[in-house]
């Protein structure tokens, strides 16, 4: 084995400990809510300052610095401020928030209460995907426990600080992971994302009030930032890529699962071939989607070269890509929500594309033209290509349709729908062209993807 680092579990430290439960006694015994106490003894601005110093970047997909996001909050409007935890976990390939919600809900609640204190929110919401039936129950039970212990609700820890916490269930819509779509959904409307400008959540969010929306894992990190202090936290990982990340590996590896590592402490190759036990017997690697299905696909034999932000030059194969925020970005893709989807040589890339396109066509809210019409069109094209009707010009057409979506939609769903097509078609063009002359699948593959 190479110099493979050990997992460093901060967020998932206790989650899979057989002696650990999701009840409050257990959480308190492990030092839970001590950091809420610590935070409340500080000024709210100081808490925000620690988060800013920590350099923590959002774990939901965009990787925007959370401390910065909080800074944008309009505190002068005089309107109520809201905190929302995005627990919609809807990016295909991602299943990390589930582990926290089901196994360590109090960690999230503590993180949220600290965040609420820092931003001045008196009411917070957890927007949880409806498929997490039990997850919502666990959270509700945990909130009741926290309330009875004075960690949530009125006069938290006997202070003037009060913040209620409401669990709100979605109903099966990917678009609710987009923060303004989520806000609309929470307002009881169709989750059509809002135009920005003017509706930046930090200014005009829930009920047109200043609102912060953070991912589950991000909010959990807040608890640890307070524990360690922002400076200390920022030493974990690498500059601009601080803290740990929970990587979710799925697809065709021996040991798929979730693994928490310091940012940048290992490469994509180490993750696939060492941590996850490599590919299934007799298979070879074909492609990897490094950050949830909307991230651009990477081809196994691609080379990535260029100059990093810090000036260092790089020339990587797929296996060399460091797992942090900047690595996959430098390779032309993104780490997104941390969902690594591995595909081996049994995969028909056109079918995989068709599978992904079917997802986006199904999930497009339909509000704005390019995404609504483009995503369905791409689905129809790839569907036809997989049903014996492929034409040589389809590859170019697909690419052109995707290009007509990217950058022209109300929300980032446009990119999420366009990037897979752009990358699949460009990087596996031969597979798409070949479809027109033969409908054969890769050798020995019985795998059906569409």
């Amino acid at each position, binding site marked *: 084995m190479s110099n493979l680092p050990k997992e460093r579990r901060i967020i998932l430290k206790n989650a899979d400990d057989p002696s650990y439960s999701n009840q409050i006694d257990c959480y308190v015994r492990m030092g839970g809510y001590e950091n809420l106490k610590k935070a409340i003894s500080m000024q709210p601005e100081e808490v925000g300052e620690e988060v800013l110093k920590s350099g923590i970047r959002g774990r939901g997909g965009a990787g925007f610095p959370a401390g910065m996001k909080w800074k944008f909050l309009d505190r002068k409007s005089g309107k109520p401020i809201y905190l929302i935890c995005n627990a919609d976990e809807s990016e295909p390939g991602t299943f990390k928030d589930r582990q926290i919600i089901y196994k360590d809900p109090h960690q999230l609640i503590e993180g949220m209460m600290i965040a609420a204190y820092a931003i001045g929110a008196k009411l917070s919401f957890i927007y949880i995907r409806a498929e997490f039936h039990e997850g919502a129950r666990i959270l509700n039970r945990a909130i009741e426990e926290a309330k009875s212990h004075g960690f949530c609700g009125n006069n938290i820890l006997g202070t003037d600080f009060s913040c209620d916490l409401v669990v709100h269930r979605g109903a099966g*819509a990917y678009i609710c992971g987009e923060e303004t779509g989520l806000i609309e959904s929470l307002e009881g409307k*169709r989750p*059509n994302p809002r*135009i920005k*400008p*003017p509706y930046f959540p930090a200014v005009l969010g829930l009920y047109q009030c200043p609102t912060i929306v953070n991912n589950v894992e991000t909010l959990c990190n807040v608890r640890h930032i307070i524990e360690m202090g922002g400076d200390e936290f920022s030493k974990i990982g690498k500059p601009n890529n601080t803290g740990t990340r929970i990587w979710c590996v799925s697809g065709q590896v021996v040991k798929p699962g979730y693994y928490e590592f310091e940012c940048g402490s290992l490469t994509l190759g180490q993750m696939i071939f060492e941590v996850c036990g490599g590919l299934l017997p007799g298979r070879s690697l074909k492609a990897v989607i490094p950050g949830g299905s909307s991230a651009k696909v990477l081809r196994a034999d691609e080379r990535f070269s260029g100059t990093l932000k810090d000036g260092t030059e790089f020339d990587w194969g797929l296996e060399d890509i460091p797992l942090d925020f900047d690595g996959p970005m430098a390779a032309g893709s993104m780490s997104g929500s941390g969902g690594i989807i591995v595909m081996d040589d049994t995969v028909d890339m056109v079918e995989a594309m068709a599978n992904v396109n079917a997802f986006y*066509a*199904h*999930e*497009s*809210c*339909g*509000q*704005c*033209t*390019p995404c*609504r*019409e*483009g*995503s*369905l*069109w791409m689905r*129809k*094209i790839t569907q*036809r290509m997989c049903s014996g009707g492929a034409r040589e010009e389809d590859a170019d*057409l697909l690419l*052109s349709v995707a*290009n*007509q979506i990217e*950058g*022209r*939609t*109300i929300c980032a769903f446009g990119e999420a729908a366009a990037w897979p097509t752009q990358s699949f078609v460009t990087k596996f063009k031969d597979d798409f062209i070949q479809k027109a002359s033969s409908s054969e699948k890769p050798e020995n593959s019985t795998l059906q993807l569409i």
Partner: protein
Amino acid sequence: MISPHNDDLITIRLNGSEVEVPNGINAVEAAALHGVEVPHYCYHPKLSVAGNCRMCLVEMGTPMRDRASGEAILEDDGSPKIGWVPKPVIGCATNVSPGMHLRTESELVQDCREGIMEFLLVNHPLDCPICDQAGECRLQEFATDYGRGFSRYVERKNVKPKRTRLGPRVTLDDERCILCSRCIRFSQEVAKDDVLGFVDRGSFSTLTCFPGKELSNNYSLNTVDICPVGALTSTDFRFKMRVWFLKESKSICTESSAGCNTLVSSREGKIHRITPRRNDQVNDTWMTDSGRTLFHSVRSENRILRPCVENQDVPMEEAISAALNCFKGKEVGVVASCHSTLEEQFLTKKLIDLTQAKTFIRGHFGEDDGILLSADRSPNLRGALLVNLTNQYPGESLHSLNDAISSGEVESLLVLNEDLLSSGVTEENLDKLPIVYLGTHANETSRLAKVTLPGLTVFEKNGSFINRSFILQAFEQSIPGPVGLVPQVNIICDLINQLSNVPSCSASFDDLWESMNASIEGLPEGLTHTELVKSALQIDRTPWSDMPFVEKEALHYTIEETTVV
């Protein structure tokens, strides 16, 4: 609404040229002010900004500033360095600020428009030949102007409901709908009747009413007007007429004192529809459904088409002399009308002064819908005040006339438009005296009249009204009147001239307005009807500030504090 309007002008750079525009308006409006079209579907100046069609994508940049010092960053040549937003932005939600740069004709913008047009058409049916929107369809227009000109779509189009009854007056074709949400926003924001919505999602989203509910409010046809494509069509107008054959004239709705500005569309002397005409001080771009039907009165059965004396058709001159005979040596009463135009009211007042007649006038009232159907159901009550036909707020009856007849103070009557029987005057009393009726349609009073003088409807003449906000607005003739009929002003003028020793009254609008400007306080010198058609005039309302006007707070109408209710 996103765009605040104000007069504070700023300089922006539009496609490379410096232009002045009001600060804060959006890029679509700013470009339009300088003759540059930014095509759009979902944006409507009178509705909230949805930003969903993406047709108005443009390139935008603003002068860069140093983060720390706030100082402008300059290019080598000293001009401000522009930070272009890397992605195109929607013009409808981009408000101009000083120094902003906009590109509406760049390659990227063209490419965006081609892309959006292609997307909008992939699931749009090709039924233009039978579509009522043809000729005024934005999809057709922009496909011509900005489309790619060929189709790359070989898949099956989505199937959605067609020819759905959305309400008593509106038919929906969901396959044509481009989901711009204008109609939904209109229903919520203007009509305050939240009945429309999208069901399902993605490309399968479908506009609908809840089962059992209908789009039946009195503003439903506005959704047809603002539908940029042929999805919402007027059930009444469906398949009746190709729009390009229609001639349009500027008119004013007579339904109530709201005074909606309208366009009357006609062909060969027949009116086919009335639609709202934009006026940001009065009706924005809306009008009631009920106001759109008023043109049917032009050809209604009870239209008075010929002058009559004692129920016998006679030539006009004969009818005029018969009318004069009625007044001769009698105490004359004149029932003036809030439905008359200002010009007619002015001459009526002149006639009254000449004959020293007693004046009677009533109002017509109904429910105020708080939007554009006001409680005062006449178009020109305030005109009657301005020409001093009365200094009292008109009531709902003419009891005083009944008393005056009973007491013998009134011995003959000239009635303009009104029905006296339904206004509290008894038939017994009316039988006592000769009545001259001047109006467009027969009623109980005209049947009792000795002399009937036919008039022209608002569609067949020129004139002006003062609306609830004391805005004086003029309208123009849309269609010719029935053969042989002349405008009311000519008839009143005739009566005046024949009663005067020196015939000096002219019914020509130039003369009429000259004399009106001279004698009516508040009208500026040189004001003409032609000018008024182009731009309305705000009349100072203070002389009537304590009158008990019945209108409620409504679109562009607020009750002033001084008003006594």
